[in-house]
């Protein structure tokens, strides 16, 4: 079998919240607890691996049916809390190897489950909750779409194990009939094909790459550093409209997502007749 599932997401969740985050009415794979970030009590949510997951195809840190519906439930619960002050921040701690691939998952509508998580996160963002994604490990495909990609600010640790992609390297190699090495070479030439977080940062999708942090075994100073970055991200998110436009505004985006910008400008010019 493959390597044991990552525990990085859980470690960072524990480091930020000082808690295990187990819920009475939810699977062990979704952890929820609050973390003091600046003046805010931010609601942190992590999806973690559980080798005893009742769904066998979601035992290695994949985001499965139970995980996705629980994310939707927990985010909506936060959304429904009576507000004493400004809407509180949500922090998605991301370390997900993919969505769960399986026959049961398709039968039972994993696409709907993941869409429910997306809907909850996007609705929280639109309601004014600063939504921050903190990438500490793998941020793959449907796992990222359902847990993190609706964030109005995305932060990542600058570490080799932090990866973003539409498909795991092994699966992409099999499907495109390439070797993992060939895919690696391709990623060096074609930035959106790369897996590493520094390449991802070049696409302008990241609000900040947090450098010089021990991602594997964070010490007190590492955690404080990340906490400070989260506080800045929260303040920045509060200062702008609750959409995703920040992702297209950086110098990096203007270069490598020039086509995304050009489509928007030209479509806007033609949208209304005349």
């Amino acid at each position, binding site marked *: 079998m493959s390597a044991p599932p990552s525990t990085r997401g859980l470690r960072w969740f524990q480091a930020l919240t000082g808690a295990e985050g187990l819920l009475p009415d939810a699977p062990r794979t979704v952890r929820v607890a609050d973390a003091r970030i600046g003046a805010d009590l931010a609601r942190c949510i992590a999806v973690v691996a559980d080798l005893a997951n009742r769904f066998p195809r979601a035992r290695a840190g994949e985001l499965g049916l139970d995980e996705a*519906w629980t994310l939707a439930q927990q985010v909506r619960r936060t959304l429904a809390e009576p507000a004493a002050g400004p809407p509180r921040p949500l922090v998605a701690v991301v370390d997900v190897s993919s969505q769960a*691939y399986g026959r049961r998952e398709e039968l039972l509508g994993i696409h709907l489950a993941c869409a429910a998580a997306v809907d909850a996160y996007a609705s929280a963002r639109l309601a004014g909750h600063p939504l921050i994604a903190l990438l500490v490990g793998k941020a793959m495909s*449907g796992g*990222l779409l359902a847990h993190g990609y609706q964030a109005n600010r995305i932060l990542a640790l600058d570490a080799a194990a932090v990866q973003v992609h539409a498909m795991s390297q092994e699966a992409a190699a099999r499907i495109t009939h390439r070797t993992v090495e060939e895919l690696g070479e391709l990623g060096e030439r074609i930035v959106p094909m790369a897996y590493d977080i520094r390449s991802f940062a070049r696409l302008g999708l990241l609000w900040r790459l947090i450098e010089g942090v021990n991602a594997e075994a964070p010490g007190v100073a590492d955690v404080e550093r990340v906490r400070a970055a989260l506080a800045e991200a929260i303040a920045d998110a509060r200062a702008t409209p609750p959409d995703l436009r920040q992702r297209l505004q950086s110098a990096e985006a203007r270069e490598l997502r020039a086509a*995304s910008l050009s489509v928007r400008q030209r479509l*806007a010019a033609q*949208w209304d007749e005349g």
Partner: protein
Amino acid sequence: MIALPASFIELTARERARAIVDAGSFRELLGPFERLKSPWLPLQGVVAQADDGVVVARGRIAGHPAAVAAIEGAYQGGSIGEVSGAKIAAALELAVRDCERGAPVRMVLLLETGGVRLQEANLGLAAIAEIHAGIVALRRHVPVVGVVAGEVGCFGGMSLAAALCSRLIVTRQARLGMNGPEVIEQEAGIGELDASDAPLVWGLMGGAQRYATGLADVLVEDDAAQIAREVRTAFEHPPAGRTTEVERYRQRLAAIDPQHPPTAEGLRRLWSSEDLR
């Protein structure tokens, strides 16, 4: 003489978009002459098509201002790259802007896609997240109607987009799922799923099954006129709201034993569409 219904599935994306809007109202935006192509495919030796496989059009639906984004399944499997994804996301964003200005736009998504285009990987995934954001934002103002007709079906991150639509129209030929059968077979083994077993695959994720289990709202024949009619009608209905019915689905899921999952037929009894309506 009885006129045979005109197939919708056999139409190109452009013809499908034209069939959806009121006669004479079709106006394509960013058409092929704009030559908005993928900047990434030529770097990998793939010929880039001049519209990147997505047709965006304005028009009217039942007399109301409308927009259609139609994915061409015949080009790169309807995959979402930077440009094709940005066309859909930008259309949604402009519709949101119009709604906020008090000028609602009826938005229709004709989904025929395998999901992210692997040659543009992270930019396809990013565009899909922006499409999701656009649907959720627009749905607060007006219904967003999705159609999955077939041949390709609707997979990957775009299956989430289908699920986010206020109403979803499918045919029997359609398939809707997060992971395509070939990917599941490859990743989980043929013991998990034999992708060549068509009855099994359609039993899991075919349009009729999705409709019968309440995961789609309307099941139509492959008939262009009927599909256009159902799209018009869909805007008059309350939204399905499945993605907000969290407790209902959590309870349904809790009642499932993963070691003894229901058959496709069994799930129809457990999650009958009548139960949801």
